[in-house]
């Protein structure tokens, strides 16, 4: 079996009395695309924030490449090779593309002075690599001048710099045009082909179904289903299952699958 990039064990997160996550187990192996789906309020965002280190879990264990980690934080998560493209893209829109790509990971030399030329060269290489280029902007352009798809490109460029092992894409196709969505899909396949992993979060089950090797359905803070692609016949199966979870009664076969994996 291939290497396990990250594993969450019995992760719980409560905000006061409210449990956002009530004991979630989730793992991502090298080179696989995991599709994470769930209704609004299922705990997807909280789970992503925990994976990216922005939010600390109330309890539970995080293992990176099989080893438990202590003092989990955003910086630690990035050091471990986990990059997140947040739903809001997490860009500083008044700054240049270069400054956004190297946000929190500035290329510095002696005593923290920036290697500006190297940053610009790397940024233009990255932007070209993922095909988010145009003759109207350069690495020194202000992000606020870019379109939604171009901004997504900047966020993705930031994620692939440093050869991340796992890239988390949080609703990457929301508010994108068809062409831009196709570009994102193209990027996901490119990443998988290079042997890295993706955790793909989406509202659009058809999108997730098209792209993922494995599906994880989250419901009210718990994993309701984990299923390999071979176990699910069509996107409609997944939709039916989610409806079933929301309104219990039916589809027992999929429940068994859930117990097996969890």
């Amino acid at each position, binding site marked *: 079996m291939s290497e396990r990039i990250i594993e969450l064990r019995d992760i719980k997160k409560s905000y006061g009395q409210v449990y956002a996550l009530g004991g979630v187990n989730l793992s991502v192996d090298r080179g696989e695309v995991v599709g994470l789906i769930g209704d609004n309020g299922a705990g997807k965002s909280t789970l992503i924030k925990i994976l990216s280190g*922005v939010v600390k879990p109330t309890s539970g264990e995080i293992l990176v490449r099989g080893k438990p980690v202590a003092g989990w934080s955003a910086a630690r998560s*990035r050091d471990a090779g986990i990059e997140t493209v947040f739903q809001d893209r997490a860009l500083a*829109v008044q*700054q240049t593309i270069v400054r956004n790509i190297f946000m*929190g990971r500035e290329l510095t030399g002696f005593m923290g002075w920036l290697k500006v030329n190297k940053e610009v060269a790397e940024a233009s290489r990255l932007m*070209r690599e993922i*095909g988010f*280029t145009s003759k109207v902007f350069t690495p020194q352009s202000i992000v606020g001048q870019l379109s939604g798809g171009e901004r997504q490109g900047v966020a993705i460029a930031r994620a692939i710099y440093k050869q991340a092992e796992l890239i988390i894409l949080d609703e990457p196709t929301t508010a994108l045009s068809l062409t831009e969505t196709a570009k994102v*899909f193209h990027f996901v396949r490119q990443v998988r082909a290079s042997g890295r992993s993706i955790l793909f979060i989406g509202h659009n089950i058809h999108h997730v179904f098209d792209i993922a090797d494995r599906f994880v359905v989250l419901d009210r803070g718990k994993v309701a289903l984990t299923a390999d692609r071979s176990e699910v016949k069509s996107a409609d199966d997944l939709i039916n299952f989610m409806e079933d979870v929301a309104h219990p009664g039916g589809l027992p076969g999929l429940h068994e699958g859930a117990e097996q994996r969890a």
Partner: protein
Amino acid sequence: MSKAMEPDLQSPLGRASGQMAKKAAKEWSHPSDNWLRGFVLDNRASLGTLAVFIVMMAVFMLANPTVFTTWYLYSSVLTTLPVALFVVVPLVFVVTCGEIDLSFPATMGFASWVFALVVQAGYDPFLGIAAAVVTGTLLGFLVGSLVVYGGLSSLIATLGMNFLLRGLIQIINEGKSTALTNLADSTAYKIFSSQIWGIPVQIFWAIAFVVFSALLFNRHRFGAQVKVVGDNPDSAKQMGIDVKLVRVKVFVFTGIGAAIAGTFSVMINFTWWPTAGDGYLLPVLASVFVGGTPTWGGIGTVVGGAIGAVTVSFIQTGVVAAGLSGFYVQFFNGLIIILSLLGHKWNQARYR
């Protein structure tokens, strides 16, 4: 590109993007290829401030050519201007970081008080400067920690700290000033506060400070993180930046600047007053915004702030020297501030 890796997918779209990339790679250059145009675009806030300054000086010179061609006028401005520069520049960092610091006048007073005490006790003024800078650093850390870790509004908390620290100075000194008569003979005085070829030496130190800070702002990790934190603190946090630490650091930087400023003002007058630094609050704030740093955070200009300080320093001197009575000073102060803000609003778009 990636086409070799995965030739079969999304064929029409994949090809389109591949062609686009190839074309763009060839024309990967800014529309403003011309270096001059690029320079103007990148520095329009500070250039705008410079334009305001030049127009203002031209008006003054036309009004009274004789006074404005005498060196004495410039010499006096160049003596006091450095004091303002040492606080305007760090304040650009604070405002760019999305905060404000109104406690710097009291920090100036407090740190220069420590300087005065050390010098009065007979120690070398260099030691006094070191002690003042340490005091400024600690006060900056105190104010910054209060705002950042206490989760307080920097506007109100630093205003409170300004009153609190000034009050402490007043309680202990009961309004009495300290004269430093032996200061003039010291090496420190010659290095930091004398004249070279008739030019006040303070201005050289201030220029060095401005240049260093401009590099820190534009070419150092600290400046890069200050801008990102001021622009989008949530994103900065998500990207692993210690947002709180960056915020505390800008207050520490202001504390250090205020300490140097306070010490320089004491060295000009050979006297420390319990009110030292008080008069700088409004002119310094005005300089930052006249200089083209917007109030909303994320962007700013150190050089613009410095030019703003020069502009504000010349208003008072200029109005009186141009032959108008002192009653006009405040009016012109306000006029320059409003005109500059209107100019900057037209000059820079705000991206969201």
